[in-house]
């Protein structure tokens, strides 16, 4: 029971965190200037965007759930979770960020899911 809770937390919190960071960066807008000084200015702007902090909060929760689960569960159990993160990410991109996930992108994402699952199984 605990495991299910932590697994869902890893997927949901990890992906939600990245989605929020993505949203924060969309608020900043496309970066054109890649010189160090401009990048530092960009970082100083990002820390004032609330989505960035919500994202960092989610990522922290996800990270500690991962640590928690690793303390009492074998790593191989993480397989379905890692793959599900890509599906969750695509859904979040579609509904939270308003991205157009067409059939081609879905097909690619599902291939990535299968591939990641194989990689993690192959490591075990």
């Amino acid at each position: 029971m605990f495991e299910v809770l932590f697994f869902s937390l890893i997927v949901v919190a990890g992906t939600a965190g990245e989605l929020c960071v993505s949203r924060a960066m969309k608020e900043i807008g496309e970066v054109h200037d890649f010189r160090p000084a401009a990048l530092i200015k960009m970082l100083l702007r990002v820390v004032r965007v609330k989505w960035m902090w919500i994202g960092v909060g989610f990522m922290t929760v996800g990270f500690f759930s991962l640590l928690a689960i690793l303390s009492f569960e074998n790593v191989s159990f993480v397989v379905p979770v890692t793959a599900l993160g890509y599906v969750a990410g695509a859904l979040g991109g579609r509904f939270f960020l308003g991205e157009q996930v067409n059939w081609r992108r879905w097909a690619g994402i599902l291939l990535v899911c299968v591939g990641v699952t194989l990689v993690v199984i192959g490591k075990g």
Partner: protein
Amino acid sequence: MSMSHHSEALAVPDSQTQSHRRLHLKTYLLILVMIIAGPLGNLMLGKGMKNIGKVTTKISSPSELLHVFLRILSSGTIWLGIASLLTFFVAYMLVLSWADYSYVQPASAMAYAVVALLATLLFGEVVSPIRWAGIVVICLGVFVVGRTNPRTTGNP
């Protein structure tokens, strides 16, 4: 449909197609930075921490904690790892400032291929056939995602 698209491209030879191409190029470049800097950073952090040894068995007083902390801070490998992970995160933020999350996330799965290559080339580890098969499937998936438009929101 492809005909009309073609003639459109001919009618506007520079600005639109060029900025389109530039968007693709800088997206690919930054994802490349991500998939190399991320695994390298994790690898170096892991190496650095292993050099320091098992932390939990060593600490029995605050001064020892400080000692371990100072050893961590004086490790060049760990600093390189941190720098590498920072590079990863800045590249990640930059690419997300214009590209779709549903494009960047699957594309960054190419990191699995980099990890396997590092494992075989640097450490002579044996990577199982299942794992290589998975990497081939990931590459296929990333190729398919890569053929979609990196940006589907905001100003075109």
